[in-house]
């Protein structure tokens, strides 16, 4: 087998050196009736060309030829080729968690840079070096807020990503926690009056996302006031951190967490992505996940190491702040390289393009007879639009043109029948947008004509 370095004569020499007659003897310690008698029933072995063909077949049965207007927590942005040239370097790809600092300075410094970039973007004091993804980062933020406040009531805006809310529900189901969801206002933002009514002196935290699941930007100052008045902590969730290049970060929050997939990490059918969590200096000892700190070596040279490990499972075991061990370092490196490549001006230019394209699409779709833009709050690169008729049929018509037209919201919000969440990044060309708009118009015509006919008959 091409991956195995030992030859049969190597094996024979080793078996002899340990005083055995055959390799089978090494497995004698497993009771005979527990040992597998037959071969595993699996295909293979496959050579490289065969493997390429196998996965090429899978690749063919995909949406690779489609234009996609899907966002909802996973964003397709252009990935500069430098990212893969770097993250495929074996020194990054095939190294372990940097417990041995002297031979892991590359990973440690890169993680320290990631922590700094996230802190700069979010306007927080500190960030950790990654969590699994946005949904679990949000959950970790909730658990952290509960530890900090010693309270056990959690208020979550209904406009937080529905799957993130499901993850929170799963994690706290045996913690004796009450989770309350608060509604959205006609603007698509959180309903402030309902929020004020929901928060009380037992509330550990209020979780709000911005841009929220409808793409709407939240008014942080007002939200924070309602939350802090009751001594609760504000957790702000961000699934599209590119927005932070143009949108003021929620510095009123106590914890900012979310998903950094948007920074050049492949959409890859949902993962691997990279969660982040940033907070205030005074909360660091309750943070989950690994932290890299700056220090000096025995000769006074600057270096980096994992730090504050007494929060973590390998030291604190059942008293740890989280059970996380392996996290998402390579994807954090991917995001770091992406942020560095774009830099201060590039990330703004990119965000401006996303904003302009989404505005163009929203304006044009909003003009389609029978369609409507229900929420009026400002958005970044995502927005909700109501279809002029059955959205399932409209999306099918778009698929005829090789366009995936967005996410039907009814699945998560039964009251939003025929509402579609549309995301427009720089990856969607004007041509594709115009084709989309044309299909919407074509689709709307029979509907409005029918309505007119009905009116005429009436």
């Amino acid at each position, binding site marked *: 087998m091409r*991956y195995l370095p*030992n030859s049969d004569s*190597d094996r024979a020499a*080793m078996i002899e050196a340990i005083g055995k007659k055959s390799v089978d003897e*090494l497995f*004698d310690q497993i009771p005979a009736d*527990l040992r597998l008698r037959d071969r595993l029933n*699996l295909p293979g*072995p496959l050579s490289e060309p065969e*493997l390429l063909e196998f*996965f090429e077949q*899978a690749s*063919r*049965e*995909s949406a*690779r030829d489609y234009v996609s207007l899907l966002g909802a927590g*996973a964003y397709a942005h252009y990935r500069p080729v430098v990212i893969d040239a770097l993250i495929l370097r*074996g020194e*990054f790809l*095939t190294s372990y*968690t940097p417990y*041995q600092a*002297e*031979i*892991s*300075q590359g990973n440690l*410094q890169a993680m320290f*840079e990631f*922590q*700094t*970039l996230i*802190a700069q973007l979010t306007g927080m004091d500190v960030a950790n070096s*990654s969590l*699994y*993804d946005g949904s679990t980062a949000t959950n970790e933020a909730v658990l952290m807020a509960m530890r900090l406040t010693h309270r056990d009531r959690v208020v979550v805006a209904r406009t937080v990503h529905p799957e*993130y809310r*499901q993850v929170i*529900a799963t994690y706290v189901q045996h913690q004796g926690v009450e989770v309350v969801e608060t509604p959205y206002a006609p603007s698509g933002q959180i309903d402030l009056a309902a929020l004020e009514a929901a928060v009380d002196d037992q509330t550990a935290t209020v979780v709000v996302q911005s841009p929220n699941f409808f793409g709407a*930007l939240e008014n942080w100052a007002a939200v924070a006031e309602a939350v802090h008045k009751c001594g609760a902590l504000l957790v702000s969730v961000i699934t599209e951190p590119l927005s932070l290049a143009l*949108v003021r970060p929620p510095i009123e929050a106590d914890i900012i967490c979310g998903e950094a997939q948007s920074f050049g990490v492949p*959409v*890859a059918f949902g993962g*691997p992505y990279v969660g982040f969590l940033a907070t205030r200096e005074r909360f660091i000892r309750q943070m989950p996940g690994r932290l890299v700190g700056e220090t000096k*070596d*025995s000769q006074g040279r600057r270096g980096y190491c994992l*730090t504050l490990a*007494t929060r973590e*499972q*390998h030291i604190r075991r*059942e008293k740890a702040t*989280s*059970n996380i*061990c392996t996290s998402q*370092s*390579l*994807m954090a*490196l991917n995001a770091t390289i992406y942020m560095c490549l774009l830099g201060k001006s*590039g990330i703004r230019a*990119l965000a401006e393009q996303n904003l302009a394209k989404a505005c163009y699409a929203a304006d044009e779709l909003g003009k389609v007879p029978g369609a409507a833009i229900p929420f009026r709050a*400002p958005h970044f690169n995502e927005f909700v639009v109501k279809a002029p008729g059955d959205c399932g049929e409209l999306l099918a018509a778009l698929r005829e043109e090789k366009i995936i037209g967005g996410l039907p919201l009814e699945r998560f919000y039964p009251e939003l029948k025929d509402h579609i969440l549309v995301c427009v990044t720089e990856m969607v060309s004007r041509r594709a947008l115009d084709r989309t708009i044309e299909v919407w118009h074509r689709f709307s015509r029979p509907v409005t004509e029918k309505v007119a006919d009905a009116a005429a008959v009436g």
Partner: protein
Amino acid sequence: MVDRIKNATPHMTRNEDLIFERSTPGKTGAELPPLDVPARPPERTLGDFYRSDIEGFPEISELDVMRHFTRLSTWNYSIDAGVYPLGSCTMKYNPRLNETVARFAGLGTDHPYTPEHLSQGCLKVLADTQRALLEITGMDAISLQPAAGAQGELTGLLLIRACLRERGDARRYILVPDSAHGTNPASVTISGYEALPLKSDSRGCVDLAELERLMTGEVAGLMLTNPNTLGIFEQDIERVCDIVHAKGGLVYMDGANMNALVGVARPGRFGVDVMHLNLHKTFSTPHGGGGPGSGPVAVKRLLEPYLPTPTVEEQPDGSVRLNYDRPRSVGRVRAFYGNFGMAVRALAYILAYGPAGLRQATEDAVLNANYVKERIRDCYDLPYDAPSMHECVFSDRRQETRGVRTGDIAKRLIDYGFHPYTTSFPLIVHGALMIEPTESAGKPELDALIDALRSIAQEAEEDPALVQKAPHTTRVSRLDEVGAARKPILRWKPASG
């Protein structure tokens, strides 16, 4: 002393500042195509929400970025560079082909909310991976949703809890052997149970009498690693499962050490009810300096109704669908379907080896560990002298008399050109040296590792300070970890003034 070191010499290592210290105003490393829709002045569009600047964000050219990260990379040890005998971590070769196929259009680019009939390729990869892992483990059903081993543990515990709750059987504790990995007790806490420590016996295995004593109606189950963290197969596993089951509990198996069992024995046969796998160990998905991982949870039929939603299900017509209609499920543990890209790589690994190859890999892993153990046992203390599976665990007792601890020996191993073994784990071994060569070390390299370990044992006798102050050949010497924790500096800040 230096002439003993055959495997490593210092190589070129460049100094490199932080990326922020390389920044010069006006530079960028990415250019965009022209905007093809009318521009929208963001100040006006966003109003009060508008942000004018990201303070401190770097400004660098593409070449600067390339050089910066390339230089950083050269400061890391890696599997690609050499043997990585890190116990419990299974640092095996990560085939590059797997990286190629994971990036294929569709597999690397399909959105998780793509309509199911358009993403059959991705769904079939998930289904194929599930089928292969079930065949390897001998379990009945599986979820690929957990993002790493620790999340798999938590998921498994939630399954146990859901099952017992349906029986109206609220219990309080989970038994966790004192040799267990730290994530085990930490996961127990999050699941809402309390971890009850279970002492190991003189063999380093589950103490059956102690288990009988502690396994009461208040105990929901046992978390067991098999082979355990000493690299020893728990021979009484069936008896262990019987004891737990007889008292109405369930057995969780931490499958982090599956590299000792693939193609040789199947946990489904042992009597365990639920287990997790680490695709980033046994199935070669790259560790990437600390993730991504993937921690699939496999169960017996009994626990199938509780698996996280959605489940990935093959239909009679060969298509694959996501099933969200699972009223007894514990819920969702992660957004979307888990670390899909890791499933692609694991499947490529399994297919590349095929059944005979997978068994060969296991045999090599076990042979390598036993070979190393046999060849250094006269130099290091072996506290549990039972047959080893894929790893062996020594103690630093002998070297400690000279003031040399496992951490020192580990650092000295760096000078010899190896990544250290795992230090100080499992906790039941005094000053543990936990060595797992994996199948990805050929005999000549193992001989060099053995020579190094033997040579260090001698150095510890003759010149303990040499070992205590190691490493001597790295870019930086030992770092002040105490100082780092006392006054944490967790980000770069511009020099003031």
